[in-house]
């Protein structure tokens, strides 16, 4: 389900947001890298939901508690407030109904951590402006016709969506290509222009 596994520079930032021994659900857990990191560093009670069966089988073979499932359809089976943190890393843009998924995350978890590639980054804008083509970058390596990313958004778009569903932004960070935080106290427009990735910590 995590479609940018090789570019998951956001993992460090996501992991730093999780306190020790938290109960965590990683939606789109991929090959289990983040869950394994969280179990090792934070001793979390971690669970995963992953679309690809191969990813799931690898996770289970590595001793992680992961099931096969789809963020769009299978989050409904989790109980209200069943987790301290629900993580959706690099997956929101690949869901069919991001608004519903985001609402579900905040029903299941006390907090949600959402990271996504920023479609407002200047390279993306420039590519459209100058080349008139859908951008294909290191971060977004797919062509328009075979991309799993069907619902791109910018950082500004995401903030609007949070407002719409009544989610409170506890903290946010924009990251550059190496996963470094950029301009901690810069305004949204700056992040929206220079951030390649964004990581949001949300509360109900």
């Amino acid at each position, binding site marked *: 389900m995590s479609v940018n596994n090789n570019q998951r520079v956001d993992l460090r930032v996501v992991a730093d947001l999780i306190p020790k021994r938290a109960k965590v659900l990683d939606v789109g857990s991929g090959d289990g890298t983040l869950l394994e990191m969280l179990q090792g560093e934070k001793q979390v009670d971690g669970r995963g939901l992953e679309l690809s069966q191969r990813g799931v089988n690898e996770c289970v*073979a590595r001793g992680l*508690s992961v*099931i*096969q499932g789809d963020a769009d359809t299978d989050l409904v089976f*989790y109980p209200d407030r069943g987790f301290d943190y629900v993580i959706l890393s690099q997956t929101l843009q690949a869901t069919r109904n991001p608004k519903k998924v985001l609402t579900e995350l905040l029903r299941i978890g006390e907090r949600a951590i959402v990271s996504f590639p920023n479609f407002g980054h200047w390279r993306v804008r420039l590519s459209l402006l100058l080349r008139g083509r859908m951008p294909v970058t290191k971060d977004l390596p797919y062509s328009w016709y075979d991309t799993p990313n069907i619902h791109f958004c910018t950082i500004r778009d995401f903030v609007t969506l949070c407002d719409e569903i009544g989610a409170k932004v506890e903290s946010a960070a924009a990251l550059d290509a190496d996963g470094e935080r950029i301009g901690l106290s810069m305004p949204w427009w700056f992040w929206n222009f220079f951030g390649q990735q964004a990581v949001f910590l949300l509360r109900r």
Partner: protein
Amino acid sequence: MVALRVNKSHSEADQPSSPVVRFEADQPLKLDAGTLLSPFQVAYQTYGDLNADKSNAILVCHALTGDQHVASPNPVTGKPGWWQVLIGPGKVIDTDRFFVICANVIGGCLGSTGPASTDPATGKPYALNLPVITIRDMVRAQLMLIDHLGIDQLFCVIGGSMGGMQVLEWASSYPERVFSALPIATGARHSSQNIAFHEVGRQSVMADPEWLGGDYLVAGRRPEKGLAVARMAAHITYLSEAALHRKFGRNLQDRDRPTFGFDADFQIESYLRHQGMTFVDRFDANSYLYLTRAMDYFDLAADHGGRLVEAFAGTKTRFCLVSFTSDWLFPTEESRSVVHALNAAGASVSFVEIETDRGHDAFLLDEPELFAAIDGFLRSAARAKGLAVR
């Protein structure tokens, strides 16, 4: 030769070649049928050693026609134990580290009380005088065995098919006794189609004139034809269409052209006849009726007001479910509905679907992905329980 083997499997019912624990009148088995079974006995096998704090016990639950001889040669057939590919020294379920227990189910025919066992009240086999047995009755009897062995909590309960039903029942009825649960190729209920196939099998047994209303043992007879046909029909459901075709296709058996008769022209016919014939040598026909019935009656949600999530409410047991893509007896959806219920109950659950064309029986075979999943799950469970990990 056949007569000899008949005697062998029948004698296993009362005097099995494995340890037996006998529960006398002071410890009756409470049955779902509303009666008590007493006295009764449970025949079991163990492998490896129980550690000092009795925390390394794994209970294996066998399937419909399995038995307690899970990792050692079968006393009736002489063949290797039915899960010897998985269980043994240095294997995925390592008997150098774990204490593995497997008990013949109540209603079975290899030493635990079943229809072929002698009814102390009459001195004759119970036959149909044995009350109908359920999956929960089997698990109750296993619990008494585990108590007898002095084990508070099983490190893991594992089993496939009917064995998986027992695993789910264990985790639901005695959650505090089960640290981790591994139900494979199973479901929380028997589907209508599954009941239908079992009914065909039972009718086949009962239509055999040698069945004698169930009293064939005292008459020295056996409904071999009926039981063989039941096994043939059931065996088809354990395989997949693709695997059958890969293995046999339309190949003819020791001939170049069809005989225009009803001999076993095709290899698949010959194969099924062989499966049927070897089965009757090792299994009791009435036992087949009882155990298929137990599976039919299994419906864990119905036992909890129709809500499967209630069967697992508040559970702390760690679960790992496994299904196989080509299993049409217990398709992936059956496992998935258990997974959803466990999710709703907030349980720790893993779920692996394995791609294979080997059908339901894949759980008994050397499936590397199955073994990798079991290995990973047991390792993490062992770490969580503080057992030494290899």
